[in-house]
């Protein structure tokens, strides 16, 4: 209870959130003490001053005050420290020859952040960081600009796609409006015709209806072709931005140093059915075949074919592994190996 109240009260001016609901708290990354906005204005407007908290002798500046993002002040602090460290140590994976080096680099960063947040060897690490920064200043700047360039490209792409999408929506809307206006006009015309001419009204109505449906389908077709063209444009923009990364043939992945044997030990009984990509006229198994009628099963991707295939695959997986022979040979090989060397 006590805690909650103190959370809602500025410890400097004792203003309560109950009385002034618009109150905002700010913190300063020097000491992370919570001070309300009006106090910050009051105390620090005239230049740097000492933190009003008792026993905190840090000097704070107004421009360093910021909103608290995380409820836990320790996390807030760690995020700030991490941001600061990462601004200096900003290499990416491509800057390393091996994955191991990169991981070691990441590990080092984590260690620094941890030590800084927990005040272990703080001065040493600060010194190390500043030294690193002075030594690698140019590289760091280069990488930072490269990174911002990348981000810019991405935002540009996003913007381009967004404008294209907007244009598409606008076009569709225009078309529809046009259609509505035209229909209105034609209806007026029809009423006029019905009033003034001596042709059979039934015949006129029929003619009108046929025309309407024809026009609306024409309009739909127009919209479709238009949106298709625009979508292609959007895709094109995306491809251009990526700069053709997907060039070059890709070798298939073979997990066991070889492809799966394409000669199967069995043939699956049954012929493919059209609607559900499953098989029919297959094995006789009342229980499983009944499940295949269950829409809940089918809807979640359950297929008779895969069930049968799995069972048959497992039936022949290791059928010709003769453990007693192979393991005896293995242990013999192990026994004779030390003698040979």
């Amino acid at each position: 209870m006590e805690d909650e109240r103190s959370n809602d009260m500025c410890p400097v001016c004792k203003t309560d959130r109950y009385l002034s609901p618009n109150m905002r708290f700010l913190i300063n990354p020097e000491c992370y003490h919570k001070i309300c906005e009006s106090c910050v204005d009051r105390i620090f407007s005239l230049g740097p001053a000492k933190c009003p908290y008792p026993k905190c002798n840090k000097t704070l500046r107004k421009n360093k005050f910021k909103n608290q993002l995380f409820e836990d002040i320790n996390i807030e602090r760690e995020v700030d420290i991490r941001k600061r460290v990462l601004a200096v140590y900003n290499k990416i994976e491509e800057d390393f020859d091996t994955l191991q080096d990169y991981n070691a680099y990441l590990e080092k960063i984590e260690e620094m952040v941890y030590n800084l947040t927990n005040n272990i060897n703080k001065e040493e690490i600060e010194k190390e960081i500043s030294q690193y920064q002075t030594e690698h200043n140019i590289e760091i700047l280069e990488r930072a600009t490269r990174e911002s360039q990348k981000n810019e490209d991405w935002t540009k792409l996003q913007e381009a796609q967004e404008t294209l999408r907007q244009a598409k929506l606008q076009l569709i809307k225009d078309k529809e409006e046009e259609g509505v206006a035209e229909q209105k006009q034609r209806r007026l015309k029809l009423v006029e015709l019905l009033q003034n001419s001596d042709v059979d009204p039934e015949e006129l109505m029929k003619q009108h209806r046929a025309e309407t449906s024809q026009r609306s389908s024409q309009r739909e077709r127009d919209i479709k072709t238009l949106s298709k063209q625009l979508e292609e444009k959007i895709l094109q923009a995306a491809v251009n931005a990526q700069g053709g990364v997907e060039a070059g043939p890709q070798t298939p992945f073979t997990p066991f140093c070889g492809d799966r044997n394409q000669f199967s030990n069995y043939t699956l009984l049954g012929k493919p059915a059209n609607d559900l990509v499953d098989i029919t006229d297959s094995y006789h198994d009342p229980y499983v075949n009944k499940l295949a009628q269950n829409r809940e099963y089918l809807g979640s991707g359950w297929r008779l074919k895969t069930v049968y295939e799995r069972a048959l695959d497992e039936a022949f997986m290791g059928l010709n592994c003769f453990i007693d022979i192979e393991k005896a040979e293995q242990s013999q090989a192990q026994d004779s190996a030390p003698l040979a060397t």
Partner: protein
Amino acid sequence: MTIPATTRPKASESGKSSKDGSLTPSEKKYVSSDDLYRHSSQYNLWSFTQAQLDEMRRAANEKGRKAALQRFEAARSSAEAENPAVFAAHGEELTSNMLELITYEEEQVFLRFICLQIIQICAHFNMPTQVRATAMSFFRKFYLVHSVMEYRPKNVAYTIVFLAAKLENYFILIESFCTRIPKTKAADILGLEFEVLQTLQFTLLVHHPFRPLWGFFLDFQLALLHPSPVMYDVSVDTIGKLYDQAKTWLNEYALLSDAPFMFTPPQIALAAFYDCDKRITDRYLRLKYLSEGPDSMETIAEEEEDPAVSKHKQTQKEQYDILVKTLKRCIVVAKQELPTSREESAKIDERCFFILSPQKLLKKKIKAFSA
């Protein structure tokens, strides 16, 4: 229906090559399904020959004896410090001789009894076959490495059933598990869990023969009934009945035996079929391996001229022979009975208790002497 000519020799070749491991990826093009099994932890860590199994069990027993004696000596020296008078008078009677260590044979009988108990526990909780089979496999693996003189089988059995239920998606809350077992605390069951996992080397996937059995049930249908029945008295119902018999056979024999260590799941499944109905199973194997279909007369006439084909026929014959031999051996191994009795097992269990906590045995004896 039969296996294509090119696969058989290749499969056996790759089998050998994966054994000596000298093959480079470029030489080897295809991985057979047998090779896939050779990559499994069940094959690499938990498959043994009969001799290896015996050796491991004897080693475990020996290890258990040593540990028991060590425990006893430690308890004895601390007891001697407490009651020097009793030890001065009866010192020579209070030696490790009073510790009735459990012999290898006794241990095997006792373990078999506990295995039967595990089946009862699983039945008590209404657990599916999968859980029972996994629990059984874990238990047998655990006592391949350790002896009953190191971990009390009763406690291990509960832990293993709980773990197996969890692994096979049949989760029971530990509280409700404990309330249904008398005189057991949650800590006892969970305390051993890591020990068990470590002994299993964290290989938690067990390939059971049940799915292969079903797979063969399906393939029997294809081989024997399609496009037209091969045997006049075999219909879908006959095969279905055979399948049910084979399933019972697996539960009754294979699960409790050393067969899962010595044979692969498909072999055990086929052995179950073979023992239940030799005639149908043999016909199936002949169809599959020896291309003895109803149309075999024409194919033989065609293929006779080609020496490569006749050679292939020979390797097929060899494959068939070795498979049938393996199946027969599997049946023998699965049906090895080890008679157990409740009284005998209860006695061994009591001895186990004193071996695991020698200080209680010493206290009992010292009390008897000082009275």
